[in-house]
């Protein structure tokens, strides 16, 4: 399934939820759910999206926090799976967009492309539930029950690149985006 189409489905189900998006995924997410102050894009460095998400889940335990990770990003921070599983925030939902490549860095293949079982890694680390979804129809039908599960929940989205929006890096790194998010969750 194309990532932008998957994100449009997610956006319909995540109204009012904090969403942490990173790099290439972030640009498509900002099209799927534009102008929403609950979009957290201040990940800063590749690999740390889920760590930001864990901090947000701990800081706002009554809100659902959804992380839209990349497969290359997750490989840079695999230890996060053990950290999140051990901390066990019930409100954290960790999605990885698996396209098998470092899309932000030239489209080179990730190590273990097509071999690594990301959902299996999450299960082994101790996530409460893990899922693999490769079809839009499955995503649409499974999402409500999946989001009703107690976290941490892991979802491996098997995706291909969607329609590439402009890469607005200055927005991702902007102080205004960070301030707007902070105002939204600290009224």
């Amino acid at each position: 399934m194309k990532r932008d189409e998957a994100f449009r489905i997610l956006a319909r189900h995540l109204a009012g939820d904090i969403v942490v998006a990173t790099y290439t995924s972030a640009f498509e997410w900002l099209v799927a759910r534009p102008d929403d102050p609950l979009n957290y894009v201040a990940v800063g460095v590749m690999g740390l999206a889920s760590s930001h998400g864990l901090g947000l889940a701990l800081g706002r335990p009554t809100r659902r926090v959804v992380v839209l990770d990349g497969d290359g990003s997750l490989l840079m921070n695999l230890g996060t799976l053990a950290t999140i599983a051990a901390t066990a925030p019930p409100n954290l939902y960790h999605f990885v967009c698996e396209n098998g490549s470092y899309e932000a860095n030239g489209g080179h293949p990730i190590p273990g492309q097509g071999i690594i079982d990301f959902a299996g890694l999450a299960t082994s680390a101790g996530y409460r539930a893990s899922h693999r979804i490769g079809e839009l129809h499955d995503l649409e039908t499974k999402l409500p029950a999946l989001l009703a599960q107690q976290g941490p929940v892991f979802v491996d989205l098997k995706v291909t690149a969607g329609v590439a929006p402009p890469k607005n890096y200055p927005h991702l790194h902007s102080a205004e985006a960070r301030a707007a998010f902070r105002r939204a969750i600290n009224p």
Partner: protein
Amino acid sequence: MADGQNTLSGSRILAAVKASGVSFVLSVPDITTSDGLLRPLANDKELRLIRVSKEDETIGISAGLWACNTKSLILIQNTGFLDSINAIRCIGVEYRLPICMMIGLLEKESGRPPSRSDKFGVKIVEPILDVLGIDHALIDNDDDVERITPAILNAYRDSRPVALLIGRSPQP
């Protein structure tokens, strides 16, 4: 030499951390602070310890907590600091977030400043912090502990990172 310059109390450090309003401590174990600080902290009722797999995770977790108006302290070893510099560079320095780090200096020689250590991994810590523009203070004895609370409070007030360098193993 006064007693306060010969000892370093872990319980005093913990009291100073609590006085700054910190509620989460994010850590990979550090041998310098293992017995005197991390073990008592793990049993503390007021501070929540989050054990992470690798030190740079703490920078992201701390940023997420900051967004929620929640204060955290990062407790790591100088080796982990060196491993986390890109995250500190971006999230702490360029984003100007209050990333508060307490860094144990592995095998720093007693009574010798870090900059004059024979241990290369210790000697380079302060120059790297200076290049990054991160304020730092050496916590080498009980007299130094009074620096901890204002350092953390100022970091959050001014939204900038700070490093507190633990120069010897605290006593529990």
